[in-house]
Every structure is written in C-alpha cells, then in structure tokens.
C-alpha cells in the first residue's frame, strides 16, 4: 500500500529514523534543480526565448449556418462574451432554406483565437456549419445616417458621390441610406460629418464568399428548400 507515498499507515507511523526517504524539508529546493531553457508564449506555442514571437491579431469574417431556433443568438453571443473573443459586429438573418439562418461575425483576433472561435461555435448544437469566409469575400453593410438639413443640395451631392439614397427628408434633418464595404462606409461617414451627423445606425457587415466557394464549410450553394448538409 501507499506505493510512492511515505509508507506510513496502519500500525507503524512514519518517522525519519524508520524511513530513509527524505522529508519535505530535506528535499532539494527549486534553485538546486536543473530547469529547461525553453519557453512557450501566451498561446502555448514553443518559442525561442531570445526572439519571442507573438501572433498579431487580424480582422476576420466568420460565417455560420445555424438552425433558426429560439435562443440561438443568445448561445452564440454568450459564447463570444464568455470566452472574451474580440468581436466587432454580429448580424443574423434568414436564408433561402426554411429553418436556417446565417450569422456573420467580424472579429479581431489572432490566428489561434480565430481557430478557437470556429471550434467553439461548431460545438453549439444549433450550429450546422461555421468557418472563416475566404479573404476576398464580398462584404457589405447597411447604414442609415441622419444629418442636419441646413444645406440639402450639398447633402444630396455627397450622397450621390457615395451611391447613397435619401430615404427621408424633412425641414430639420435628412436621412440617407448607404451600403458598401467597411472602407467605403467609413469614407462616406467622413464626408457627411461636415453637415453634422444627428444619428447613425449601422447593421454591421454581412458577407458571402466569391464565386462558387461555399460561404460556410460544406454549404452547397443553391440548395433552396433543401436541408443544408455539412460534409467535412
């Protein structure tokens, strides 16, 4: 009994005389032991201790095909917040398949972080398929922008320049609808700033993969009305 332990127990008590093995106070301390030179970084990757490499974070678009059931958005957003993933935006909407929705997230994470988001998302039961949308994805965001109407002609001119559309015009304010990728939206907002932006509402970008590449892994384009299968 007691194997690698002290050998005490039962009738006989462990005493320093009866047991030749060193007591805790007699065992070598940390400084008397050899220690390896190697190190790992915060992501658990072995590194050269002299030139410590760290992953830079990057912007990634993640698309997930999910079962449209109650609580699915809460599950996804709860996962993101609980695991401290840096998320810029999250959009959700139906697909052509009944009972399926698409969630599009823009995240700012390191490569291991992006990998974790995908894997943790994949574990959620309502998530059918999830993956990062390839770098040249088509992304677009819708913005409603309300500016002061002091100079309607100028507002109209800027709106035209950015392919905007006036959706409401009153004596005090003009509301413009804009769509586009992040860069063009940011430029447009910059241009509208001189009129005085009263209110703004942005949906956050949504995205599709280019060409016939599936947006979420295993998703078959054009399967309207049929359940999407997830073939790895």
């Amino acid at each position, binding site marked *: 009994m007691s194997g*690698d*332990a002290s050998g005490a127990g039962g009738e006989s008590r462990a005493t*320093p005389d009866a047991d030749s093995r060193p007591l*805790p106070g007699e065992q070598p301390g*940390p400084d008397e*032991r050899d220690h390896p030179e190697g190190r790992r970084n915060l992501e*658990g990757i*072995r590194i050269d201790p002299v030139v410590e490499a760290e992953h830079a974070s990057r912007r990634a678009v993640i698309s997930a095909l999910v079962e449209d059931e109650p609580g699915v958005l809460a599950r996804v957003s709860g996962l993101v917040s609980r695991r401290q993933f840096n998320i810029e935006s999250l959009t959700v909407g139906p697909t052509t398949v009944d009972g399926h929705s698409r969630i599009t997230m823009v995240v700012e994470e390191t490569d291991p972080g992006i990998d974790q988001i995908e894997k943790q998302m994949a574990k959620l*039961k309502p998530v059918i398929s999830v993956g990062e949308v390839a770098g040249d994805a088509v992304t677009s965001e819708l913005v409603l922008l309300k500016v002061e109407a002091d100079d309607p002609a100028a507002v109209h001119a800027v709106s035209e320049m950015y392919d905007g559309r006036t959706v409401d015009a009153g004596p005090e304010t003009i509301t413009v609808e804009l769509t586009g990728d992040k860069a063009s939206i940011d430029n447009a907002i910059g241009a509208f700033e001189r009129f005085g932006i009263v209110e703004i509402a942005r949906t956050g970008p949504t995205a599709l993969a280019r060409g016939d590449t599936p947006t979420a892994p295993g998703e078959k384009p054009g399967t309207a009305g049929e359940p999407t299968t997830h073939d790895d």
Partner: protein
Amino acid sequence: MSDTAAQPRSDADGSDDASEAAATEEPTDPDDEQAAGPVSTGAESVVAALEAAGAKTAFGVQGGAIMPVYDALYDSSIRHVTMAHEQGASHAADAYGVVAGEPGLCMATSGPGATNLVTGIADADMDSDAMLALTGQVPTEFVGNDAFQETDTVGVTRPITKHNYFAGEADTVGDTVGEAFELSRAGRPGPTLVDLPKDVTQAETDRTPGPATPPAGTDPDPNADPDAVEEAARVIEAAERPVCLFGGGVIKADASAEARTFARSYGIPVTTTMPGIGSFPEDDDLSLSWAGMHGTGYANLAITHTDCLIAVGTRFDDRLTGGIDTFAPEAEVIHVDIDPAEISKNVYADYPLIGDAGRVLDQLTAAVREAPDAEAWRDRCDEWKETYPLTYATPDDEPLKPQFVVEAFDEATDDDTIVTTGVGQHQMWASQFWTYSEPRTWVSSHGLGTMGYGVPAAVGARVAADTMGEEDRDVVCFDGDGSFLMTMQELSVAVREELDLTIAVLNNEYIGMVRQWQDAFYEGRHMASDYTWMPEFDKLAEAFGALGLRVDDYDEVAPAVEEALEYEGPAVIDFHVDPEENVLPMVPSGGANGKFAAAEDQL
C-alpha cells in the same frame, strides 16, 4: 416516491423494489435501449423516454412545477432518491455517473429548485461528466411574467450545459428528454438540461417517444486520422524523454486498459492529471503519479523535462500547467482528444489526434514500430522518485497528521474502494496519500472546485455501486470541516436509504487551504479562515442516526477506521488533525512546475 420506496427497504431481507427492478433489466449495457411503453401525458412520456434510454436512478427534490413528472415516476422502474437539497441531487447524480459510467439523472422544481442545481451542473460541465437535469417550469402561459417560482432556467444554465432545451409540446417532450440523455454522453460528455413547463407535462398525449438518439453531428468519429497517427508514432519512436499524461478523458472513454497497454508496451513513464487518477496504477514502476499544483515533485519534473508529451484526454487546466511559458517547454506535444476545440486551446499541439482515447491509443500502439530509447530517462525519473517522495513528519509533540489518516484507510480497504472528497487540503491529501489503481474509484470536484461535493457524491457513488450489484465495495468520503458543513444534510439521505459509506472529516478547524495561502502569501493574516466554531461532528452524526466517532490520537486511528468500515450504514469519523499542516509539494499559482516547493520555506 421515496416514502413508498422506503417501505420494503425496512424489511428483514433488505431488498428493495428498485434494485430488483434494475436487476431484471439485464444486460445493463448503457446502449441497451428498449421501446418506450404507452403513455397518456407529457410527464409519462418523459419517464417512458428515460426508462427506454436505460436510466435506472434519479436524484432529486419534489416541488410544485415538477410534480407531474414525479407523479409519473410513481409507477416507474426508475429508483428515485430524495435528497435534502437540490445541490446534493446534482452532485449525487454526477458521482453516480462517474462510478456507473452512464449519465447521472437529477430533478428539481422550477425557480429555487433549478438554481440550487446550478452548482452541480457547473461542476459536471467543468469535469465533462455526463448528466441530465430535469427542471420543472411554470406553465408556458406564465413564462416571462415573473410568476411564482419562475426562473429563466434555460438562460441561467446555458453557459454551463453542453446544450439545454425548453420543452414546448407534450407530443415531443419525451423525444427531447431522450435526446438530451443521449447527448450528455455523446462525444465529449457533459451535462444537459430539459426545462419542463407544468402545462406540457400535464397535457394529454398518446405519442410514445421514439428511440433516443443524440442530435446529428454530435457523435464524432472515434478514430484519428491515420496519417496523423503515423507522424505521431515517428515522434514517439525518436523521443529520448517521453512521458504520457493521462487525463480524465481516458477514464470517461473507458480507455484505462488501452492506456496501460500503450505505456507498458513502449516503456514510457506515466503521469496523470487529477481527474485522470486511476487511469494508470500508481503502484506501477512506470507511474509517476499525478502532476500539477500539488502533484508529486517527480511528475512535475518529468513533464517539465520531457521532449515528447503524449497527452490523452486532458484540457491542460492551469492547475496542471502552472505558468504556460514554462510548461513542458521542450516537448513536442501529441494531444489526443475527442473535442477539437481542446486542441491548441491552452498548449499548442504539434501532433493533434482527434478521436476517442481508447481507439486512438490502440492506433498508436499499433503504429509505433519500436520503443523509444528511454532507459536513461526512466532512470532519471526513478532518481526523482527517490529524491522527492511524498512524505510527512510525525513528531510526537504535534497533533495527528491528516496524511496518516488517509494512509490508514487505504491500508484497511481494497483496491476497488471508491473515494469521494470535498475541496481543499483534505482533497489533496486524499489524492496524494492514497494509491489508486483502478478507474472510476476517484470521485472528486476538479475543475469547479466545489466545497461540499464529498457527502452527496458519496451518496451517489454508493447508490451506483449498489445498482451495479457491487455492494461489497467500500465508499470512503474524505471531507474537510468546512466542506462537510456545506452539504452534511445529505447524511440524512444516507441514513434513510441505509447506505453503507464512511465519511472521514479531516477536521483542522480551518478552511485549511485558505489558511495555507494566507500563511504563504498574506503574511499569516487569517481573515475568515478560522473555523474553531465547528460543531461536534460525531454527535451531529449520531443525531442524524449515523455512527459518529471522534479521533484525536494516532493509536485511535486504526480501531476507528475498522469500526466505521465494518458498520453497516453511514459512519462519520471526526478526525481532529494538525491545524498547521500544509499541502506539499506546491507549485505557486502560475509558477513553473519544475520549481515546485517541496517544503514551506521553499515557497
């Protein structure tokens, strides 16, 4: 149910209807599924689904919203064990599952019943234990109105379950419950929950639940990619300092035999994690016992100096790794896990092998062509075992040492004895000074660290062993004074159910691990850690109707252990142990495993 079930148990022959019913359900293979019988209500459909899925035992507490389900249990073959508190029900179900190797089942009413389950559900989630929780809910039309005893149970338990369900219809509630039961043990196990509104369980339905199956895509391929296995095999062959690290996943996958074959075939020293205790016999020459904050010095040195870490079924918890920067810093890591999300989550896996622990270990055993040349390394490990043994001093002028009590119990019991614990110093001593050799004999709260786990876990473990026809096995709960006080009311259940178990309270009149940290890191300021106000546990045990003993000296230990083990029923021994004793060795939080402190003055 418990009242009626208690009746036959007082008979002279001691048999009870539930275990007889269980015995007639042979074979007890967890995959053994039967067709569900006819039903007339949602609640009957729930119970029919549970019976069809093979559930034999439930732990719970009655209450308003769950009453229809309890009523349906009245005529069921499922044995229901009424617990004193819902937290006890969830821990008992968790431990039952660990020992029996099938999902535990716990039940509670809505509101406070459900929230009281939460600690046990979170505990099961952290330790990847298969468990199904059924909660009553207010009728659907009241949901969201802040009705009496309403809690958003699905919302509260969402982050601590593998998946949870709100049952919306009587026709499908049985299917949902069956799916939740199967999901809890599919792939990486974990707790699931079904919230059962009272109108749904009360509603009429004649729809018999179909065969219980886990949801699509949740039962992964058990085999790892053969090419990846080959690559890993080459790394193992070339290793000079290989070490196995067997985690709780080895036990959950029932892969102890495969793990032993692999390590012994190639002469690779073995460490385990704490949940992995029992996966490999600690008295084996290759065993280095368990690694981590209070693991053995030699295990921590081995995982620090290894050049090839074969980690199976572990999630590299921070209590195992210490500081990530110094964790196995020179090792190529081969990581076997059923959950892809664990790969490279905390420690980068050079060779990820995704699959079932047993299957992948078999694949590796077959793929490795020759054992690594590791004789020098094994010698070095043996030297560490001699230099840094787990020992403790027993000077005559100091009180009884808690480690001695653990060793005395180990000596007095068989290898198949089940040990449960609370959380704290006593838990560490129970894991250090007991030599484990079999899986599913170490039942503890690892990831969540739930004080109070020990007593309800002992109830669940005892019921599981009895259900499996293993009445001869001993169940010993090591508890601390602080942990015991948190859930000791479950002793009343052990008395009522005549459960043969022994609770050893290692009473140091402190919340001892906190006291140890205060001495090491807070200049000995004992804020709120002094527990000199504890009741007399032996007398309290007697008041519950259990055997109560008190021990203060070394020469009283063996007779008390013997008396408690021989007693047919629950026994409590209040061991008054040295309040100053510390758990050693110790890796300070975030420190390097190889720099563990062997003694206090090395901290």
